[in-house]
C-alpha cells in the first residue's frame, strides 16, 4: 500500500501544476498548427513535442542535475549545495537563485555535488546544452541552408540587396518598441532582451535562435516559437500591408527577365561575402561563415557528396535536435510570463514593419529608375522567410497581372534578407553581447 502511495505521489497527475497543463495545451496547439495547418512543420513538430516533454511533471527532462536535486529537496543535498554555492539558506528557491547567479567554477562544483547525490541532467537539458548552448545547431542549419540557396537571382540583379537591407528595419524598430515598453514600465526587457526580440523581425529561424541563445536564453522558447509561427503566417501578414502601400499600377509592373549567371560568379560570391564579413564584422563570422561554406560546397561542383549530406542527412538530424532543444525552453516556469505575450506582440509588429520598409524601399528604387522597372511587391520578400515571402510577392503580382511572374525577381531580395539579418545579428552581438 505504501508503494502504491509512493507511486501515486510520484505520478504526474498528483504533481502537475496549472502552468504545466497550460503549456501542454499550448504545445498541442502548436502540433495542431504544424500538422493540420502546415505551419513550418519541420521545426514546429519537434518544438511542440519537445515542449510537452519539458512539461512532464517530476520527470525533470528540461532541468540540469542541480535543478533536479533542488526540486527533490533532500535536506542533506540542499545543505551540501548551499555550502558549495556559499549561501547560508537551504531554502530550495534561494539555493537555486544562488546557483543561477554563481560563476562557472561554482556551477561546476555544484554539478559534481548533484551528481554525487545521484541526480543527472534531464534528457532535454542535455540536448539544449549540446545543440544550442554550444551554438552548433543553428550554425549547421545555416550551413545546410547555404547549401540549399541559389544566389543566381541575387547575382543577376545585385541591387536587390538594398531591399534585403531595408527590410531589416523591422528588427531595429522592434528593438526600440521593446525598450519603449520597458521604459513605460509595461514590460521588463533589458537591452539584450530587446535585441533578441527584434531579431524575430529577421524572419529567419536559425538566426533568431542563435541570437536569442546568446543574448537572452531565458526568452529563447518564446522567440523561436514566434519566429517560426510568423514565418508560417507570412501569407496572411504581408498581403494587406503590400496592398496598402502600393498602387494597382505599381503592382502591374512587369520586370524583364534576369540575365544568365555563370557558375564562376556563383563560386566567387560566397568567398567575397566571407571576406567582407571578415573585414567588417567579425561577430557575424560564425553565422555567415557557415552559410558561405555551405554555399561554396554547393556551387564549387567538386564536393557534391558533402553538399548532399549537408542538405539532407546532416540538416535533418540537426533539425530534429534543434527543435527538441527549443522545446526544452517551453517549460511553464520559463514561458508563462507576461514577457511572452510582449514577445508575440512585438514579433508580429516586427514582421509588419519589415514588410513595409521593404516595399517602401522598392517603391523608392522604382521611382529612381524611372518608375517602370521594379515592381514594389518584391520589396516585401526582403524580410527573408525564404521562400514563402517570395511566393507571396509572386502571388500578388499574378493577381494584378496574370502574366507577371515575380518569383525569380523576389528570390533576390529574399536571400538578401538572410544576409541582412545575419549582419544585423552581428551588429547586435557586437554592441550588446
Amino acid at each position, binding site marked *: 500500500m505504501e508503494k502504491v502511495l509512493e507511486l501515486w505521489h510520484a505520478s504526474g497527475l498528483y504533481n502537475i501544476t496549472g502552468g504545466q497543463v497550460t503549456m501542454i495545451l499550448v504545445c498541442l496547439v502548436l502540433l495542431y498548427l504544424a500538422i493540420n495547418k502546415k505551419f513550418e512543420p519541420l521545426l514546429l513538430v519537434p518544438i511542440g513535442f519537445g515542449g510537452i516533454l519539458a512539461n512532464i511533471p517530476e520527470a525533470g527532462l528540461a532541468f540540469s542535475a542541480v535543478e533536479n536535486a533542488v526540486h527533490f529537496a533532500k535536506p542533506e543535498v540542499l545543505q551540501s549545495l548551499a555550502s558549495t554555492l556559499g549561501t547560508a539558506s537551504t531554502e530550495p528557491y534561494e539555493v537555486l537563485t544562488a546557483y543561477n547567479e554563481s560563476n562557472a567554477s561554482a556551477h561546476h562544483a555544484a554539478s559534481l555535488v548533484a551528481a554525487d547525490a545521484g541526480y543527472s541532467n534531464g534528457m532535454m537539458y542535455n540536448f539544449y546544452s549540446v545543440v544550442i548552448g554550444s551554438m552548433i545547431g543553428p550554425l549547421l542549419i545555416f550551413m545546410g541552408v547555404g547549401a540549399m540557396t541559389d544566389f543566381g537571382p*541575387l*547575382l543577376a540583379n*545585385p*541591387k536587390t*540587396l*538594398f531591399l*534585403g*537591407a531595408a527590410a*531589416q*528595419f523591422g*528588427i*531595429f*524598430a522592434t*528593438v*526600440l518598441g*521593446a*525598450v*519603449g515598453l*520597458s*521604459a513605460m*514600465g509595461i514590460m521588463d526587457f*533589458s*537591452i539584450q532582451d*530587446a*535585441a533578441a526580440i527584434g531579431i524575430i523581425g529577421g524572419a529567419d529561424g536559425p538566426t533568431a535562435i542563435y541570437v536569442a541563445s546568446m543574448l537572452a536564453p531565458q526568452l529563447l522558447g518564446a522567440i523561436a516559437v514566434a519566429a517560426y509561427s510568423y514565418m508560417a503566417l507570412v501569407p496572411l501578414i504581408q498581403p494587406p500591408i503590400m496592398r496598402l502601400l502600393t498602387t494597382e499600377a505599381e503592382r502591374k509592373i512587369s520586370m524583364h527577365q534576369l540575365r544568365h*549567371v*555563370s*557558375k*564562376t*560568379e556563383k563560386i*566567387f*560570391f560566397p568567398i*567575397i*561575402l566571407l571576406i*567582407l564579413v571578415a573585414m*567588417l*564584422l567579425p561577430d557575424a563570422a560564425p553565422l555567415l561563415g557557415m552559410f558561405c561554406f555551405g554555399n561554396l560546397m554547393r556551387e564549387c*561542383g*567538386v*564536393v*557534391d*557528396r558533402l553538399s548532399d549530406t549537408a542538405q539532407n542527412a546532416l540538416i535533418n538530424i540537426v533539425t530534429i535536435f534543434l527543435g527538441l532543444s527549443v522545446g526544452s525552453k517551453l517549460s511553464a516556469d520559463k514561458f508563462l510570463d507576461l514577457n511572452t505575450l510582449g514577445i508575440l506582440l512585438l514579433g508580429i509588429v516586427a514582421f509588419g514593419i519589415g514588410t513595409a520598409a521593404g516595399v517602401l524601399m522598392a517603391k523608392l528604387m522604382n521611382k529612381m529608375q524611372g518608375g517602370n522597372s521594379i515592381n514594389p511587391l518584391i520589396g516585401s520578400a526582403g524580410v527573408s522567410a525564404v521562400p514563402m515571402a517570395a511566393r507571396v510577392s509572386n502571388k500578388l503580382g499574378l493577381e494584378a497581372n496574370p502574366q507577371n511572374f515575380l518569383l525569380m525577381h523576389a528570390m533576390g531580395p529574399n536571400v*538578401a534578407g538572410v*544576409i*541582412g539579418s545575419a*549582419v*544585423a545579428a552581428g*551588429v*547586435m552581438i557586437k*554592441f*550588446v553581447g
Partner: protein
Amino acid sequence: MENLVSEGLSLMGFGMGFVFVFLTLLVFATSLMSKFVTKFLPEPVVLPKVKPATPVSGHNNDELLAVLSAAVHHNRSK
C-alpha cells in the same frame, strides 16, 4: 529607463546604418566581381555536364570496373 531608450535608439541607428553600408559594399563587390568574371573568366560555350567523381578516399569503382572488365576481356580473348 531613459538610458535604455537611448541605447535602443543608438542600436537602431548604428544597426541600420551598418546593414546598409555592408550591403552597399556587397553590391559594389558583387558587381565588380561579375564584370571581372564575365570579362576574364567567361564560361566555355558548350559545357557537357559531367558528373564529378569525388569519392572520399578516391576509390573510384566505375573507372576501376571499366578497366577491370577491359582487362578480363583482354585475358579471355587471348
